């Protein structure tokens, strides 16, 4: 075990790591600025009147990666499954891995969806893979650290001095710019100067994990709940909406009718609450994870943040699984309808 650890390659890696730690702690130039926590995704590109935020850019990257993965996994599959020999059907390498993942997902879908599995599975599996990749991509180095240098967006943000394209850890002095800002205010603030109101620079990253953008998670929640309604109508016809506007209780008396309507209103509210809880659960978990990693890296540098990377990998997987499971459960309950009331 110990012998394996001290192979020449590992020794070289350790030496480089220790060297980097020593150099970075001794050179003031390599002191890094404190991380900027931005709750909203920031715009990085403008195409015409369309603003592309860093989270949207990364979501597109996730899509491209998923498409390439799908292509690579099905590339060696025989075109004609009926006439293919057994030798050709045996998967290997990447295809084998993906078949394992898809099979595990299919078994989970089957245990919840039952006979509806062929309809549910593509959506559930897509949500799982998309969310999983979006969660994990944010853990890569370069996310949140490579970007455009911009002046701070508002007064409470601390700007830093930049040397060339690299942001240093030296906070920009507010004093030398103080005169300029008051001058501008006195002369009616030229709009061109507006952006340079605050001293120094901050990094607006090119890439940001899509799950740390509330728009992304809410959109996924909306899609999921909209599909719940779709499957409900598909399974039960328009009788599905009886769940929300239940007037059948009036046959038994005014009191039962009012209770039925009230229950319907509650159902309607809980349907919207599900969208919000979908959105906030994913956003909160992943965003909090990134903040945690940032805080840990600056609290005790170098090694203490490593276990938290493991934790974030785990949380990313769990959240993707939870999103998929909840979607499946909501699908399943929508297709079953409220059978209990019909038995009365």
């Amino acid at each position, binding site marked *: 075990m110990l012998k394996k650890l001290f192979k020449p390659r590992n020794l070289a890696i350790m030496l480089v790591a220790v060297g980097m730690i020593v150099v970075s702690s001794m050179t003031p130039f390599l002191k890094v600025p404190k991380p900027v*926590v931005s*709750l909203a995704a920031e715009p990085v590109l403008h195409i015409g009147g369309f603003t592309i935020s860093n989270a949207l850019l990364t979501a597109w990257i996730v899509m491209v990666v998923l498409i390439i993965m799908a292509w690579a996994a099905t590339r060696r599959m025989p075109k004609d499954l009926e006439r293919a020999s057994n030798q050709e059907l045996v998967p290997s390498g990447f295809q084998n891995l993906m078949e394992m993942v898809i099979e595990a997902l299919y078994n989970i879908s089957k245990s919840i969806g039952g006979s509806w599995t062929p309809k549910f599975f593509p959506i559930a599996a897509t949500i799982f893979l998309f969310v999983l990749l979006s969660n994990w991509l944010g853990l890569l180095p370069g996310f949140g650290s490579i970007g455009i240098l911009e002046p701070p967006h508002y007064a409470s943000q601390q700007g830093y001095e930049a040397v060339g394209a690299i942001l240093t850890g030296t906070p920009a002095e507010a004093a030398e710019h103080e005169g300029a800002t008051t001058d501008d205010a006195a002369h009616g603030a030229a709009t061109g100067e507006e952006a340079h109101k605050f001293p120094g620079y901050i990094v607006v990253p090119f890439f940001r994990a899509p799950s740390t953008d509330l728009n992304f998670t809410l959109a996924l929640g909306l899609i999921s709940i909209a599909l719940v309604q779709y499957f409900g109508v598909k399974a039960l016809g328009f009788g599905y909406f009886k769940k929300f506007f239940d007037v059948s209780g009036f046959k038994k008396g005014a009191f039962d009718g009012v209770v039925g309507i009230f229950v319907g209103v509650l159902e309607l509210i809980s349907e919207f609450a599900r969208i919000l809880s979908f959105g*906030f659960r994913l*956003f*909160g*978990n992943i*965003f*909090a994870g990134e903040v945690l990693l940032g805080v840990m890296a600056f609290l005790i540098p170098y090694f203490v943040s490593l276990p938290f990377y493991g934790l974030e990998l785990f949380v990313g997987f769990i959240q993707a*699984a*939870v999103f998929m499971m909840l979607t499946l459960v909501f699908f399943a309950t929508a297709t079953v309808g409220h059978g209990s009331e019909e038995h009365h």
Partner: protein
Amino acid sequence: MDLTALGTALAIGLGAIGPGIGIGILGSKAMEAIGRNPEAAGEIRTNMILGMAFAEAIAIYALVVALIIKFV
């Protein structure tokens, strides 16, 4: 007087009480169940982690509110 920091701390501090109790109950019940039926440990653990993720989500809502108070 700026009470933002106090608000942030109260939001996450109070919001973590309920989920903390919930996760504690979940964990203790799961341990009990595994003790009674060790063969089902794998399934119990999976369901426990799922349940914990739901309980944790409540704390995460509080955290989101705290982050919004702090950074917006």
